[in-house]
């Protein structure tokens, strides 16, 4: 699977004391392009998603593949808590809790009528989004598309299930197929037995962001089940 990354944006929650994140640039969330009456409804999850998507897509319509392992879980957990105590659900929170809410809001704010997918596929979610993106490019459904991946740290009551480090993060990149002679990335599944403890394992999406930032020639992306080799081929 080979692809070119034209634009790239990443946002990581500040003040993380986690080794490996120092190579990622920090930037303030910029939502100045969203009208205040619309901005007020956005959750932290939605804000980081919109920030990165806007940085990459600008004002041009572009097909989008959105992925997230858990979606806006802080919001979903709040809704589940309300159900448990038989409280009435907030219509706003309910309406914006579906998995494709972030791309839906983005499409409305940007008049982006291009096709959009929303993917949740466990701790491989961004890899599945890359495979789906490549399939859409390869079958010429589009010449270019944006991939956006977002995840929030698990709410406290779910942290006992964590199998990797919990970091609020978002990234977006525009993807296309390589033209003859230009530099590109390739991604291939490999056999690999990770020895990293879950408490030290960065989500693959963040490993991928670090590799893109560093343009590392070869990076092994791995979680506790699978691994891939990301290779940068200079043009």
């Amino acid at each position, binding site marked *: 699977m080979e692809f070119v990354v034209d634009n790239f944006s990443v946002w990581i929650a500040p003040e993380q004391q986690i080794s490996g994140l120092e190579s990622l640039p920090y930037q303030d969330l910029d939502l100045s392009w969203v009208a*205040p009456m619309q*901005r*007020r*409804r956005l959750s932290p999850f939605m804000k980081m998603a919109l920030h990165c998507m806007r940085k990459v897509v600008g004002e041009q319509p572009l097909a989008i593949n959105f992925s997230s392992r858990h979606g806006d879980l802080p919001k979903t957990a709040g809704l589940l808590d309300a159900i448990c105590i038989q409280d*009435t659900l*907030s*219509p*706003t929170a309910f*309406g914006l809790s579906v998995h494709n809410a972030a791309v839906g809001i983005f499409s409305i704010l940007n008049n982006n009528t291009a096709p959009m997918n929303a993917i949740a596929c466990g701790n491989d979610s961004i890899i599945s989004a890359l495979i789906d993106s490549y399939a859409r490019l390869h079958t010429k459904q589009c010449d270019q598309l944006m991939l956006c991946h977002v995840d929030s740290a698990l709410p406290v009551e779910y942290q006992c299930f964590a199998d990797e480090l919990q970091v609020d993060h978002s990234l977006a990149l525009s993807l296309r197929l390589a033209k003859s002679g230009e530099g590109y990335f390739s991604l291939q599944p490999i056999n690999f037995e990770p020895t990293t403890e879950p408490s030290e394992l960065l989500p693959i999406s963040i490993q991928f962001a670090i590799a893109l930032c560093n343009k590392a020639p070869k990076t092994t992306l791995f979680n506790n089940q699978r691994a891939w080799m990301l290779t940068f081929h200079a043009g």
Partner: protein
Amino acid sequence: MSELKNKIKLLIINSLDLEDMTIADIEDDQPLFIDGLGLDSIDALELGLAIKKEFNVKIDANSEQTKAHFASVDALAEFIESNRS
């Protein structure tokens, strides 16, 4: 009544996340929806829920009257005053 109106304004600001707005920014007779404060149909649902919780008032979503009760802070105050238990 003016205490109730201030309570309603505060409820509108807090339940609808109206950033940077204070109760002084909302006029008693200002329309709440569309051209006035600029609220929309989702806000109407959210506000209805908040009012129901705060004042223990039953709101009939299918009633034509409900639209009139939500027209302004004045109208809401009158409705709450005459319906709360």
